[in-house]
């Protein structure tokens, strides 16, 4: 089983390295987005008057970027596998459902890991914040979030017959994550109903951990509960993804 998971992960990464345009896009897009965030928000005079420091938000934006890039990437690629018939061929050639799901997680987490590293370096450079003291907690949290994102992508891909049908599923995850995860608006300021809804947003837990550790200087162990929930969400998504991955049409 481990061997097959490994074969899938290697295959995904090999394809990723082979596709130059895709490679450049997935590494340049985060850079451009971080720059955009920096310059747009720094130019807003209102933020300074309200005593908001954009650098406080940068690490949360970084997590958001990794979340949605990993989610979209894995959804589209798995749907493409289904459309081109390579998924069916994998099944006939002895790969099992759980191996495929875990192989995708392993493959995309590697890609998401590279993106995370890039985004974190950018964050600390562009916003001039020192992430070094909390780097272990940050990496752990963002990687857990990346696994959740890929799990979500694999799960969602079951409901799309082609790449076009993936599109409506993108805002369904991306917008609520931006609005009610606590990145931009503190969850306590949301109406009660939305506060409840926010428990369904995986990004909420990552934001909670990062806010506590990086911005409020708390210890990672103080954030163990949201971390367990984040990892638990990952496990639930992985289980549902491997149970719902259609092997037989």
């Amino acid at each position: 089983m481990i061997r097959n998971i490994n074969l899938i992960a290697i295959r995904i990464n090999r394809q990723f390295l082979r596709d130059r345009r895709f490679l450049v896009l997935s590494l340049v897009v985060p850079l451009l987005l971080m720059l955009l965030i920096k310059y747009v928000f720094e130019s807003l005079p209102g933020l300074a008057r309200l005593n908001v420091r954009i650098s406080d938000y940068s690490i949360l934006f970084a997590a958001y970027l990794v979340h949605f890039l990993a989610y979209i990437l894995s959804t589209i690629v798995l749907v493409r596998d289904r459309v081109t018939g390579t998924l069916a061929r994998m099944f006939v050639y002895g790969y099992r459902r759980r191996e495929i799901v875990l192989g995708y997680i392993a493959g995309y987490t590697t890609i998401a890991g590279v993106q995370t590293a890039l985004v974190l370096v950018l964050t600390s450079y562009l916003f001039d914040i020192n992430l070094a003291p909390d780097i272990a907690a940050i990496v752990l949290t963002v990687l857990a979030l990346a696994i959740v994102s890929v799990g979500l992508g694999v799960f969602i891909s079951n409901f799309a017959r082609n790449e076009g049908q993936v599109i409506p599923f993108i805002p369904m995850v991306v917008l609520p994550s931006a609005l009610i995860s606590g990145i931009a608006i503190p969850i306590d300021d949301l109406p009660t109903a939305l506060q409840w809804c926010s428990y369904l947003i995986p990004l909420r837990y990552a934001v909670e951990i990062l806010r506590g550790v990086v911005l409020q200087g708390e210890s990672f162990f103080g954030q163990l509960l949201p971390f367990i929930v984040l990892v638990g969400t990952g496990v639930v998504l992985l289980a549902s993804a491997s149970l719902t991955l259609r092997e037989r049409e």
Partner: protein
Amino acid sequence: MTVDSLEKTIEIEDLYKSYGAIRALNGTNLTVAPAQVFGLLGPNGSGKTTLIKAICGILKPDRGNIRVFGLEAGHDRYAVRKRLGYMPQTPSLYDDLSPAENLRFFGGGFHLPDLQERLREVLEFVQLWNRRDDPLYTFSGGMRQRISLACALLHDPELLILDEPTAGVDPALRQDFWEHFTELRNRGRTIFLSTNQMDEAQRCDRIAVVMGGKMLVNETPGTIRGRGKTRVTLELEDGQRIEEVADYESALPRLLAEYGLGSQVKRISLKRQSLEEVILDLIADPQAKERQTR
């Protein structure tokens, strides 16, 4: 597993599958004996691919049974798949990867101990060994089809399921493919292939004609051809007489008796229907019946 089922590589009983209002399989029955080249013939949309996917266990029929090597194709699919090679209708390979990488990936799922050797053998067979490291997106449609076949042959399976293997392959290579199929059959392998090229039917040991998800015949090409009609043309002094007969050997004496064998009969010519024509008639017949009942 019964002794009876051991003698059959594939057994299909009363198989149904619908896609919405469209019935792809409509009570299909079929048996395939081992060590044969078995051809599944039928026009587009007759249910060939649906049937092939069901045999490989990647399609769930609405009802009915499929047994492969005496095992249940759905429930025991993991055991069945180890022993079968599948070539889908579209190449279904990774375009960014080379043939060698594709084959290593798919072959990897079976944990073949001699993967590297087999890789060379199958790529040499499809005559693409020298291009093993080029990315697949630089290959033509026919070349991808060859890689797809190489992939199906990789683990030297007992049963090869090939969905239109020769579509888009040039005539010389098609000849090679067929020689290889025959050679595999002689080594005891079973080849189950679909085709809509009627000239290939002649090369199969047995053919089944599928139409509207139902099997019309399952016989040897010779028997099917024997069902064909013969057009007897008698050229007489005062004109021509043409008659189509099912069994010309017994019809001929009757026809000739009418004229004796006098000098008024100038010429007798016989034209038997080709296998292709017989099959096309078979396919046209249920269509005609369907039109009449509407």
